[in-house]
């Protein structure tokens, strides 16, 4: 059976399957690497000599879902250090502290983990490295680090306080080490809500005690309140921000992962059905020779797997390469830290291979179902009719997509954009299913028209071939329509949302400048007060809060969202377009909400970024929810629950700030004032667009490949035409006209299917029936489709002599 299957296989059809699987493998492997990294990628371990770490829980378990990671450090009581030290098997226990610190004089190499957590107390060094020269820093103005000179005086901003320090020691660990007393002060552990706490307790096991044993003992002693980490989980305990950050990796491909799986299935299925169609005659003969439908299906499946198998290894290699490029992009947009590398395990490739072989198996079964069951006598000249079930299912999907596109008319939060965003992939599947019938109908109407009847032979034949070979044509039309629809709708949805967002953000922050200090991980203390002496200014904190569902289509359980912390000083500066209440009341446990989400006076349960549960009062409601998100928290509340405790930016009215800023190193002023949501959203948009570009390129290559194979496989048909008196020129013209019809049909269908959701989105978000540009994408996509079809058809057409 296998030998027969392989002997029968036409190389042309199987090359199409091979290419489809190769590309699919690359895409799925790359996505898999990103997802795998979303679970496992870590910063390098700092406290290398600590075998066990005890820290607060930095995640909230969610029923039947992944836990929500908390990015802000939740401290543990300092007394825990003593408790741990008494546990048998513990050789040493150190209360570790991290706080923002950066050298601002001269250039020093960046610290792993960034400036937000670069400062530590001297006692931490006993588990992270060694003193290599000098003596232990003791005074408030002494410091030690790796890359410096003994005795050197350095300007350092630590814990938000600029000061001059003297280097008393050199160490072989990254970061800046202060005396323990200074560290406690700088980290804000001597007073306030975090007084007497440490970030985590780092433990070294006594000789002969294994880390796992020790962890078990600690768990028994301390109970479930604390996270007890060993092995690679130690790095997660050290940097909760990195754990939460890598969670974004799970979201990014997730938003387009469904689409890519669909496209891979479509392309592979298309390749297989092409290969089957080329063997219709042989398969019919096989049936005539006594093969059962099941045997015929097995022949097809064996061929499919034989073509897929050699594509797996090179596809996986391509996938890892692609993932690395994607990783660079993620680092570029700040979604991934440069020192937090992607994880290149074998798992993504294995999973992708299994998934693809499954797809090939199912697709070959589905594609061969009809051929294998056709009566023995027919089949030779039969062109195949699209099944009514398939057509109806497709039309239904298209209808459903139209209904979904209406969402922005009803709801106007960001979530409403999910409607149109889902509509496009649905419509595209619908087109793939209903395509053959639609092509048959459209080309049929064209073929019957008087106009076509009067056309020259090649042109007339092109129309009739498109009609008669609807199944053959529709594959290409649907695939190219897919390119147009997905390309337009995904891109323009993003730009429309971005425009809607900035349309709200621009008036909200009109006439303001933004002061930031990215290399310090926050605005140094005292700067806001000095700015305020010159001009009205407001501090702004960015953090993450976790809430239950707030708006339509929210996750019904818990959602972590980036939020802005604003205080009373924002009143009169930042214009949220208030409906009710006032920003002046944003103090303590207070929040402001999008007017569609709540009312003033209501209470809202909020989990802060460090896990603290707060029952907040709603003190204001606002309209500019697209720019500011559904929730804005009070700056006090936000600052009390962040790792750094610093403002992330200052919004101020323009004034002569230059002399002031000259005294504050590493502080930057930008005129551009965007909404706080913009950064996150544009990063995500960029990744989505990058993945989309790769996907569409894959789809285009697959279609082109398929078109070449189809055209080449028409040699018999062309021979007949030639014997009937067609000149080579006429044949070439016929094929070119068919290409024109395919390109026109695909562009038309693609534009129509993309237009409906985009128009709705425009009406909902921009109050006009046109999405945001760049609208040249419309002719651009038509051009690309035309070019690909032309290239794919022109090559074989030229060979006709």
């Amino acid at each position, binding site marked *: 059976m296998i030998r027969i299957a392989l002997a029968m296989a036409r190389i042309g059809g199987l090359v199409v399957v091979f290419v489809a699987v190769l590309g699919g493998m690359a895409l799925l492997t790359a996505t898999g690497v990103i997802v795998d990294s979303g679970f496992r990628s870590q910063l390098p371990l700092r406290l290398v000599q600590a075998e066990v770490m005890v820290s607060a829980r930095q995640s909230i378990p969610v029923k039947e879902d992944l836990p929500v990671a908390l990015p802000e450090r939740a401290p543990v009581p300092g007394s825990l250090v003593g408790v741990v030290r008494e546990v048998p098997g513990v050789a040493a226990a150190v209360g570790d502290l991290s706080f923002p610190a950066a050298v601002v004089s001269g250039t020093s190499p960046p610290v792993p983990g960034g400036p937000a957590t670069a400062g530590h107390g001297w006692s931490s060094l006993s588990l992270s490295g060694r003193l290599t020269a000098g003596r232990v820093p003791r005074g408030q103005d002494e410091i030690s680090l790796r890359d410096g000179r003994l005795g050197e005086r350095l300007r350092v901003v630590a814990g938000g306080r600029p000061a001059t320090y003297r280097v008393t020691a050199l160490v072989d660990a990254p970061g800046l080490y202060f005396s323990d007393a200074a560290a406690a002060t700088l980290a804000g552990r001597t007073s306030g809500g975090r007084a007497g706490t440490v970030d985590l307790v780092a433990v070294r096991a006594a000789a002969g005690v294994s880390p796992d044993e020790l962890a078990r003992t600690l768990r028994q002693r301390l109970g479930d309140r604390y996270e007890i980490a060993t092995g690679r989980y130690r790095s997660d305990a050290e940097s909760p921000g990195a754990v939460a950050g890598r969670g974004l990796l799970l979201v990014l491909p997730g938003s387009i992962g469904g689409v890519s799986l669909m496209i891979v299935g479509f392309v592979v299925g298309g390749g297989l059905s092409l290969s089957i169609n080329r063997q219709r005659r042989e398969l019919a003969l096989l049936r005539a020779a006594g093969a059962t439908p099941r045997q015929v299906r097995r022949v097809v499946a064996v061929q499919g797997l034989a073509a897929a198998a050699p594509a797996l290894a090179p596809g996986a290699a391509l996938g890892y390469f692609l993932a690395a490029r994607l990783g660079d992009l993620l680092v570029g947009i700040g979604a991934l830290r440069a020192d937090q590398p992607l994880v290149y395990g074998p798992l993504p490739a294995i999973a992708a291979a299994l998934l693809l072989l499954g797809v090939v198996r199912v697709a070959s079964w589905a594609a061969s179902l009809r051929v294998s069951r056709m009566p023995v006598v027919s089949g030779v*000249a039969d*062109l195949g009719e699209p099944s009514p079930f398939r057509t109806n299912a497709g039309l239904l999907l298209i209808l459903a997509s139209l209904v979904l596109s209406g969402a922005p008319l009803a709801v106007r939060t960001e979530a409403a954009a999910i409607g149109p965003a889902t509509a496009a992939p649905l419509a595209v599947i619908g087109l793939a299913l209903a395509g053959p019938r639609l092509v048959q109908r459209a080309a049929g109407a064209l073929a019957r028209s008087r106009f076509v009847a009067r056309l020259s032979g090649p042109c007339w034949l092109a129309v009739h071939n498109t009609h008669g070979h609807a199944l053959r044509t529709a594959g290409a039309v649907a695939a190219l329509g897919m390119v147009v629809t997905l390309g337009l709708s995904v891109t323009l949805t993003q730009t429309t949302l971005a425009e809607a967002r900035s349309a709200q953000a621009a008036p909200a922050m009109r006439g303001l400048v933004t002061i930031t200090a990215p290399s310090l991980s926050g605005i140094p203390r005292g700067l806001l007060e000095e700015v305020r002496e010159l001009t009205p200014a407001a501090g702004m904190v960015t953090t993450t809060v976790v809430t239950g569902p707030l708006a339509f289509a929210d996750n019904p359980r818990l959602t972590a969202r980036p939020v802005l912390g604003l205080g009373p000083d924002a009143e009169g500066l930042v214009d949220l377009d208030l409906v009710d209440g006032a920003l002046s009341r944003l103090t303590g446990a207070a929040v402001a909400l999008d007017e569609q989400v709540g009312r003033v006076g209501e209470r809202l349960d909020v989990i802060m970024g460090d896990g603290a549960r707060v029952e907040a009062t709603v003190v204001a409601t606002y309209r500019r929810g697209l720019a500011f998100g559904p929730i804005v928290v009070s700056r006090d509340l936000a600052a009390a629950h962040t790792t750094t405790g610093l403002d992330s930016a200052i919004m101020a009215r323009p004034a002569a700030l230059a002399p002031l800023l000259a005294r504050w190193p590493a502080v930057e002023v930008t005129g551009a004032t965007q909404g706080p949501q913009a950064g996150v959203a544009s990063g995500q948009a960029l990744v989505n667009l990058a993945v989309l570009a790769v996907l569409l390129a894959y789809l285009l290559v697959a279609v082109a490949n398929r078109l070449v194979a189809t055209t080449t496989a028409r040699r018999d048909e062309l021979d007949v*035409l030639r*014997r*009937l008196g067609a000149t080579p020129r006429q044949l070439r013209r016929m094929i070119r006209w068919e290409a024109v019809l395919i390109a026109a049909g695909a562009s038309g269908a693609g534009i129509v299917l993309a237009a409906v959701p985009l128009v709705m989105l425009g009406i909902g978000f921009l109050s006009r029936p046109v999405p945001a540009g760049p609208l040249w994408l419309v002719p651009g996509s038509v051009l690309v489709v035309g070019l690909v079809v032309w290239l794919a058809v022109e090559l074989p057409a030229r060979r006709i002599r």
Partner: protein
Amino acid sequence: MRPVVTLDRVTKRYGDLVALDEVTLAVPQGRFVAVMGPSGSGKSTLLHCAAALDRPTSGTVKMGGTDVGRLSETKRTVLRRKHAGFVFQSYNLLPAISVQDNITLPLRLAGVRPDREWLDELVHRVGLRDRLHHKPAALSGGQQQRAAIVRALAARPDVVFADEPTGALDLRSAGQVLDLLRELVDELGQTVVMVTHDPAAATRAHETLVMADGRVIDVLDAPAPEELAVRLTRLAGGEPVR
């Protein structure tokens, strides 16, 4: 009578293999010529060269007075459209278009307006009037071959070439197709050159060319089927004929 197609010392080689060996031949107007011979003797090759579908390696083929050998592919096609029709063993109707469109396809390709009356008469003669709007797949083999014959005749060519036109048909359908061809010759003065393996079919022709090893080794005028059968069996057995 004026010859429609003439071959003068036509040789066709495929590499070392000589498929046609210096064949000289003239097909006069209004004749029904059958070509017989064992498999591989060069019958199809002869037909292809005579119909200007293929170019001979050496020698000259003249169709409608024009030397075919010197013409480009396009010019040859244009010449063929005017002078020759072709009927294949496997009908070669295009599955994507209706029978009627199949019939007029060569005219369409030639950019010639179909002669309605002529086509109506042909269609009537072959009894396909009510099948014209079907796709070829809906017709029986015999009906498809008759449609193919109408197609070959649609442009009123000087000569119709048929390569085993009854090869895929049952006895009755084959009989109908052969009768039709003979009728066309007798009543319309059509010239027909037909390759066949069936001695009974050959008896409908005016004359039968017998081929072996790329050569025409015998020309028989209206032979009796028995005589033909004997000659062919001897040929197949490899015995000398002369």
